[in-house]
């Protein structure tokens, strides 16, 4: 079997099915579900056949380059695939679970209002997952990574007419975005580390790797740490663990496969994929073992106090993934793989049957009722001292709030004194000023020129924060996001080797999305009150506008549906290794932009509908 056929088949199937599913009528429950599970079934068949063939051929990793999306002298953005033991294990796991769960959901979701949306999202998720596991370089992986993030958001917010799913979807999405900083910065550093866009296989070539690491050991450590941040965010490791139980908002089967198995093990995948890159960095490995151990211990304790079944399973799963991280750190690749597959199936099944615990336990209690009335030992009493801490999840959830989001809000709202129009002109002026400077670049002293990128990036960052914390005007927030991208683009244009075509790559999609979004909002404002001070739930009456606006938001956050996605990577390649601050603020801006746009989407379109002429759930439900 030809490897390209296999990869094209495995990836092409969900893409084709996803596109078809978008056009199927809402009423066609049968067609939607058959399409989904036969996709997964064919994927499963393919992976089984291919694995046999591949083992027969000698089980060597196979890599091939698909296509160059953008190419210049010293830059090549290309799609690349890699198939090895790791890929095939994950491919088997993903296809098998998706197949079973889609059959399950076919009946379980019968007559549910979002039946179609559910299967659309599952197929979309399948595309993201497949892209990640087959990716041969960071760029390809990042495409899948982004799709995974957005489809997770949509699955968690599946019950979009209720408040908590929407808020939790935003919360999970924000943690995912932190993980994205890891990926973006790692991509940037890798580019400088190797002086080109490398594939995973190239990274693994021991000789050149050692050479590079010897020269740049601190950069190596930094890259590895960034990998950890990305992996920890996706796999709910410390300090990000508290998102996982909160992701259990969708229908039980979707929680079961995505948050019980497929999504949470993607962090482990990233570490396994980059294993050879960091396996000789002893500091990192020690750190990884400690982090894994801490996660395992703390989340086990937290799991034990959970009085809800889904959060109990979630924390138990996090603890096992902590152990998996240790196994990876120790280089026990095969043990880790077995552990991943076992954990995935066990937790999926436990979540699926979780409603049965009521009848099971109540029956059990009839026969073996034990209530601890016994005198507690001194040790027990000592342990009990940690009960409240565990109940409060070791303050993990609060910490993120306190250390990250609150300060951002403070920065954003600190500007409140200035009114919008004033700020707007100020921004426009500064941008214009920037453009003038850029035009007369030759006249600028080098000193100034070197500082300008940082200045404009910082300025852009502040705009992103402002957009993220805006509580009132939707259009203003949207515009600020666009301006942030413009500032970043301007900032980097002061750097060497900047080609004006890069502006076009980067800003074309952004501007288009912004204009479309602005128009949609203006149109809606004629009939509806929209603002960012609350969740408005307008999707109830405007499902189509809502869908298009979601695309707008994705476009504005550099999602791989417009050229801006490539542009994003492209402009990063212009940031020099010594411009760490610039890189950080640029990456952070992109992350906050993504959050700001999803926040706009959520607040305008999702949540309890403000018009309560129909059934509306309580905010607490």
């Amino acid at each position, binding site marked *: 079997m030809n490897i390209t056929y296999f990869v094209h088949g495995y990836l092409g199937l969900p893409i084709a099915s996803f596109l078809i599913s978008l056009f199927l009528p809402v009423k066609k429950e049968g067609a939607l579900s058959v399409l989904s599970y036969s996709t997964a079934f064919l994927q499963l068949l393919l992976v089984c056949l291919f694995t046999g063939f591949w083992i027969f051929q000698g089980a060597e990793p196979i890599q091939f380059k698909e296509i160059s999306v953008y190419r210049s002298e010293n830059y090549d953005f290309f799609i690349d695939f890699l198939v090895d033991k790791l890929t095939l294990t994950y491919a088997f796991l993903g296809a*098998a679970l998706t197949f079973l769960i889609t059959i399950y959901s076919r009946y379980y979701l*019968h007559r549910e209002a979002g039946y179609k949306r559910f299967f659309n999202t599952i197929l979309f998720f399948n595309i993201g997952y497949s892209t990640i596991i087959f990716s041969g370089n960071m760029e390809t992986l990042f495409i899948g990574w982004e799709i995974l993030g957005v489809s997770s958001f949509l699955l968690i917010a599946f019950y979009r007419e209720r408040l908590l799913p929407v808020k939790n979807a935003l919360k999970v999405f924000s943690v995912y975005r932190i993980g994205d900083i890891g990926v973006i910065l790692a991509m940037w550093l890798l580019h400088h580390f190797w002086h080109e866009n490398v594939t995973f296989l190239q990274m693994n070539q021991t000789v050149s790797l050692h050479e590079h690491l010897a020269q740049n050991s601190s950069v190596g450590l930094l890259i590895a740490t960034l990998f950890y941040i990305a992996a920890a965010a996706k796999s709910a490791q410390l300090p990000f663990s508290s998102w996982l139980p909160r992701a259990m908002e969708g229908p039980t089967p979707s929680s079961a496969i995505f948050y019980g198995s497929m999504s949470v093990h993607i962090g482990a995948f990233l570490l396994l994929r980059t294993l050879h890159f960091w396996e000789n960095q002893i500091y990192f490995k020690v750190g990884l073992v400690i982090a894994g151990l801490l996660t395992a211990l703390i989340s086990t304790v937290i799991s034990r106090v959970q009085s809800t079944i889904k959060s109990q399973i979630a924390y138990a799963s996090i603890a096992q993934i902590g152990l998996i991280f240790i196994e990876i750190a120790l280089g026990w690749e095969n043990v880790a793989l077995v552990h991943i597959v*076992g954990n995935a199936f066990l937790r999926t*099944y436990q979540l699926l*049957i979780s*409603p049965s615990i009521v009848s099971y336990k109540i029956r059990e209690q009839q026969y073996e*009722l034990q209530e601890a009335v016994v005198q507690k030992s001194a040790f027990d009493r000592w342990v009990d001292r940690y009960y409240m801490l565990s109940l*409060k999840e070791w303050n993990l959830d609060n910490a993120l709030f306190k250390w990250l989001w609150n300060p951002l809000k403070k920065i954003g709202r600190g500007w409140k004194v200035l009114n919008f129009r004033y700020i707007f002109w100020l921004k426009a002026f500064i941008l214009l000023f920037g453009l003038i400077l850029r035009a007369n670049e030759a006249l600028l002293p080098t000193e100034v020129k070197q500082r300008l990128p940082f200045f404009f990036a910082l300025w852009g960052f502040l705009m992103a924060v402002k957009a993220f914390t805006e509580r009132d005007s939707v259009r203003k927030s949207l515009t600020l996001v666009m301006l942030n991208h413009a500032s970043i683009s301007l900032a980097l244009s002061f750097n060497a080797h900047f080609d004006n075509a890069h502006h076009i790559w980067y800003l074309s999609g952004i501007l288009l999305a912004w204009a479309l979004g602005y128009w949609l909002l203006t149109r809606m404002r004629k009939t509806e009150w929209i603002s960012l001070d609350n969740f408005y739930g307008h999707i109830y009456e405007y499902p189509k506008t809502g869908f298009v606006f979601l695309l707008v938001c994705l476009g504005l956050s550099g999602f791989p549906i417009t050229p801006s996605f490539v542009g994003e990577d492209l402009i990063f390649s212009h940031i020099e290794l010594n411009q760490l601050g610039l890189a950080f603020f640029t990456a952070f801006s992109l992350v906050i932009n993504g959050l700001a746009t999803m926040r706009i989407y959520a607040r305008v379109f999702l949540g309890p509908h403000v018009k309560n002429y129909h059934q509306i759930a309580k905010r607490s439900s």
Partner: protein
Amino acid sequence: MNENQNLAQLIHELAHYLPSQAPLKDFIHHNTLHAFQQLPFHKGLHAAQQLFGYQTYLTLDDYRQRYENGEISEASLALAFKKQDDVSMNQLFSLEATSQLQSKVGSYRLQWKKKLGFDLDARVHPLLFRIVNSFLDQGIAIWRFPTNGLPFLAALRQMESENTASIFTGERARNCFLNPAFKLIDALDLLVGDQSAYENYLYDQQFAHPGYSGMIAQIANRPSLLVLERAIAFEDFLLLECLLEIDTLDQHHGNWIPSSKFGLETYQFDPNNLLSTTEQKLKAIWQDAYEWTYYNQVLESLQQKENHELLEVGSIGIFCIDDRECSIRRHIERLDPSFLSFGTPGHFNIETYFQPFGSSQRTKICPAPVQPTHLIIEHSVAQKKDKEWHFDARSHGLIVGWVLTHTYGFWSALKLALSILWPSKNTMAVSSKQHMDAEAMLSVEHMPGQFTPDGLQIGFTVAQMTQIVGGMLKSIGLQKGFSSLIYIVAHGSSSANNTHYAGYDCGACSGRPGSVNARAFAQMANHQLVRRALRETGLYIPDHVHFVAVLQDTAMDEFSYFDIQQIPMDLMTVFEKDRALFSKACEQNAIERSKKFATVNSLANPRSVHKKVQLRTVSLFEPRPELNHATNALCIVGRRQFSRDVFLDRRAFLNSYDYRVDPTGEALSGILNAVAPVCGGINLEYYFSRVDNEQLGAGSKLPHNVMGLLGVANGVDGDLRTGLPSQMIELHDPYRLLVIVEQKPQVVYEAITRNPNTFEWFANEWVRLVAYDPEAHYFSVFEQGAFEPYASSVTSKRAS
């Protein structure tokens, strides 16, 4: 002191409006808006909407659509319209629904929230729910809340003083909490300040999470609702919530200034003096018209049918009044026209607790309000217990979990695949047969001196048994014409992955299958001494008559029989014939039910349809093992011949009653005392869950998460959801229950006036009542407290 009394009174009243749903193990249907029952139905619904913002009717568009479809007739609409004044016909069709309704409850804190600029509830609820759910938890958490046997606040205070982490962030709230002299009133002084706003504040606060508040108010009143008893006072819960709020506000605002300083507008909480809006009046008209369109059809078909007694009676079956028995009875009688069926509440007049073999606990197997003084113990050899490793706490441990995932995880994969691709019987599924071992002995007969330590009498004496058997047979009017075999048919249900499984069993047995009751009743009725004693009371049951206990599984459509070996040899041929009849009827019943399951093709071969219907009860992925009471709308109290052969589409509760043996209406009174709260409760719970599934129902069950075995919630930090999930009510038509009694109107009137609670149900029209005069042959409708002749019943019913 006076302040505290006022506050206690206020809390007591508040609790009355909260949902009164017990923990999951006992699911008992009740009127969701029971707190408004002292008002006439429509008034109550209007008040509930204005106060709490519930949807209490279908939407205007929905009614109009039903009118278009012919589900609401022009005649009924005209009639309903005539009864209401100050709205116009034009408005019925053209008035636009208000798009932004503001309920009173919630409005005080809403103004405040706008001023504050942050969502206090969102910060306080998760921790509050977590704490209280952990305290009440009945067996999910591995590391239990260290109550040390103390009540809620005391346990928390002990924890607060000994634990490494505090509940609170700031010092102020913590100090107040640790001070036992600090009461709720002090917390309110700090939070609100102005006493006139306390009522508003507490209502707004508690109705932001009615699920937990209701659960706690229930448990506070009756700690025995929990297996692992927990002492919690509702007021203590309020205190904790207020302190958490003070703490959060302190964090946010520095030292918090009482909210009354903000000059917020308060509202008057008074359900009795609210004016209905035009929209509400229109909806009342639509609802009446909608109901009467259906009622008319029923009354007309009852009127047109021939009413005669069976000439020749074959076998007799006594079923539960449950609406699900309506169709199986029809099928049996259609297949064998000589079969005669009766209906009576499925506990068969036996009020007792039941203690399964090997268990130290008792379950109530009679109507919920009854406090039994008897106990039936099961004596068996085998304990019915299956281990399921996936629910074992050890799978969540670190080390065992590590080993398990490497090994057992792959077994899970296999089980997962099998359970989805080839569903079959499994340890997770609930089966109606688990309730009692068919081979077990039941301690039905009381042996002198046998009492439990807490004073329950084990079994029943002959005199008591005689009363039970005689009373039941009298109430259904079975006094003569006994067949050789009489089947006592109890019912139960089977389902898998179903948190609300208790709601599918027999309501008259407190949400358990009725198998113990049926078996006990058959044993009593077959008892020689009981027969003899009955003869003395004038009830002659011939010696050849034998009672057989049966359990019908309403989801599987399957009959199982008890104590077959005791059937006299000469009756075995009759039994075998009946058994074949029942299994045929079950198959037909399954086909009838399958017509409402979109995923089963009901036209396929009958056996395979039946098999498919049965598979639903073991399939993990099936949220609708059966449709339970959905579409219930009627309750017919009368002789079988009154409604026999009329297609009632599984909508009717059928209670047998013979007006000829009850001229004073005493027996009727007993029947209606049970029918109103039980059938009315089921009906109204379905009604309200249907018209507002989000606030009065539980929403879709698909995302539900089990909270401490007490209830379900969405996700991990949502409020408990009460009422019925959307999957149970989506096919329900929200009609009020129409009770049709075959008895003279004046006798019926006397019967309902004997008990003021029962009278309230009918007089306030939460349940509609029609009497059929069996001698004068006309219907009368009970309206505004009196019987009026039914308008379209001009042609009298043909006499038997």
